């Protein structure tokens, strides 16, 4: 069965639509409630994963770039694992940004900023509509920056979705019906190729997590159990790093062959640092 991924500019709406769709289709929900489990599994401090989904690393924040990448990789690996189970409605985990090539994952964006802004939000906060506009514009910019830094993909770009529905005029009930109807379309049905694509991505994500725990500058691709790792290292560390990657990645279930491509790290060469 297809996977449905809901994204929105307003968290409340995202949750509401995802829940309605899951209820109507009798699908499982996959959302941020899985984060504590992932934190436990990877021995990460509570709340860190949630924080990594909202902020980008900077020198003034406590979360370093290395930690941030690792946290996102953990989320990604676990989301892929859950998506392999099928019949899933996923929201709040930015899955639309890392499942772009999975054709049976229907990616829907719900827009409702004007509705939400001009209605309850500005009144609830006792602020002016202009103030709320500014706040929301800042929030949108922040999400844009986050998605670009994390996945080099603009979350607000409509071409990243199969369907974008604006709730300013369209009723949420109608939007839910549109999504559930669209799921039936042939293009969103799992095919051998798209299932294989998802399992390859899941394997790559699993290897990525294992490697990022020990080193930086890692990119992983997987195909039929063969894993290609792209990394950077100085001439001195090259052999050591390749051996470590092969050792770490090779021990993961499903990995049959590991190939490592190393680019010269000029900074590492002069600094003489470790991985």
């Amino acid at each position: 069965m297809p996977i449905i991924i809901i994204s929105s500019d307003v968290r409340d709406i995202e949750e509401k639509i995802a829940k309605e769709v899951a209820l109507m289709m009798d699908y499982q929900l996959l959302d941020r409630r899985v984060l504590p489990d992932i934190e436990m599994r990877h021995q990460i401090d509570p709340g860190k994963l949630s924080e990594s989904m909202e902020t980008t690393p900077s020198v003034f924040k406590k979360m370093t770039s290395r930690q941030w990448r690792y946290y996102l990789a953990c989320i990604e690996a676990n989301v892929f694992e859950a998506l392999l189970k099928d019949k899933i409605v996923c929201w709040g985990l930015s899955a639309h940004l890392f499942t772009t090539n999975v054709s049976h994952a229907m990616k829907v964006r719900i827009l409702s900023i004007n509705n939400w802004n001009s209605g309850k939000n500005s009144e609830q906060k006792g602020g002016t509509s202009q103030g709320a506009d500014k706040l929301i514009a800042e929030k949108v910019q922040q999400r844009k920056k986050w998605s670009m830094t994390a996945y080099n993909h603009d979350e607000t770009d409509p071409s990243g979705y199969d369907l974008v529905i604006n709730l300013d005029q369209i009723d949420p009930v109608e939007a839910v019906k549109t999504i559930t109807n669209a799921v039936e379309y042939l293009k969103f049905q799992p095919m051998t190729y798209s299932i294989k694509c998802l399992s390859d991505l899941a394997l790559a994500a699993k290897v990525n997590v294992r490697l990022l725990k020990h080193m930086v500058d890692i990119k992983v691709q997987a195909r039929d159990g063969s894993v290609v790792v792209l990394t950077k290292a100085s001439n001195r560390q090259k052999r050591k790093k390749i051996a470590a990657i092969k050792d770490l990645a090779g021990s993961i279930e499903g990995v049959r062959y590991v190939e490592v491509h190393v680019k010269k790290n000029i900074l590492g060469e002069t600094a003489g640092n470790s991985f």
Partner: protein
Amino acid sequence: MAVITISRGAFSLGKIVAEKVAERLHYDVISREILLDASTRFNVPEIKLEKAIHDAPGILERYRHSKQSYVAYIRSALVERIINDNVVYNGLAGHLLIKGLPHVLKVRITANIESRVAIEMERNQIPAQEARILIQEDDKQRLKWTHALYDHDPRDASLYDLCIFIDKLSVDNAVDFICRAAESEAFRATDKNKQKIKDLATACRVKATLVDEFPNIAVTCEYGNVLVYISKDQATGKLIKKLNTIRDNMNDIYHLETHTGVPVPTDAV
């Protein structure tokens, strides 16, 4: 019944989608006819109107305001056409020219650049590189045009009610989505909505009559009461005379007044 505008980049299959939607809903499809209407009504060569709605204004045009005039004529012709509902407009800038009307379903069809290039290559029998350059140039012009005249980005999803990525879906799937949305309660032409469109048509007519000589005026209309927003230096005897003529000649105006030096409402044309 609704009015549907379908916006798309060149070679994104938007035209086929528009035709199929119209066929299924028994609506009229309009596109270039608007330019012919405007050309006849305002006595402007069609080629100038086509350029005005397609190409971004050049430096001289920004000072001459000719583009504003032509766009006002096109807008007026378009609103007159959609006044009776049941219309699919797949020409340029529909979502901007008739914004503010609740029963207008604004749709954007997007497609991958590669598939657009493939369609253009096949249709015009040209090499891929040439097709790509032409499409990119067209997109650039659309972007500049929308920025210059409306300060928007045509790719901004919040301008539309539905954005459909046609590559993964088929034309028929897109038609399903659009028809379903068009038939929903939100896009029914209620009496209130019909009045709104009549008022918009009146405001557009007034604007089109004045825009050539007074390019920076703005017009609103509510239940036949027309407000013309002007700056202090525009409040001349010439304008007053022109407004008196408009008041005498347009039967659907109950009352017409000018507002000077006040902020222009966002829904003004």
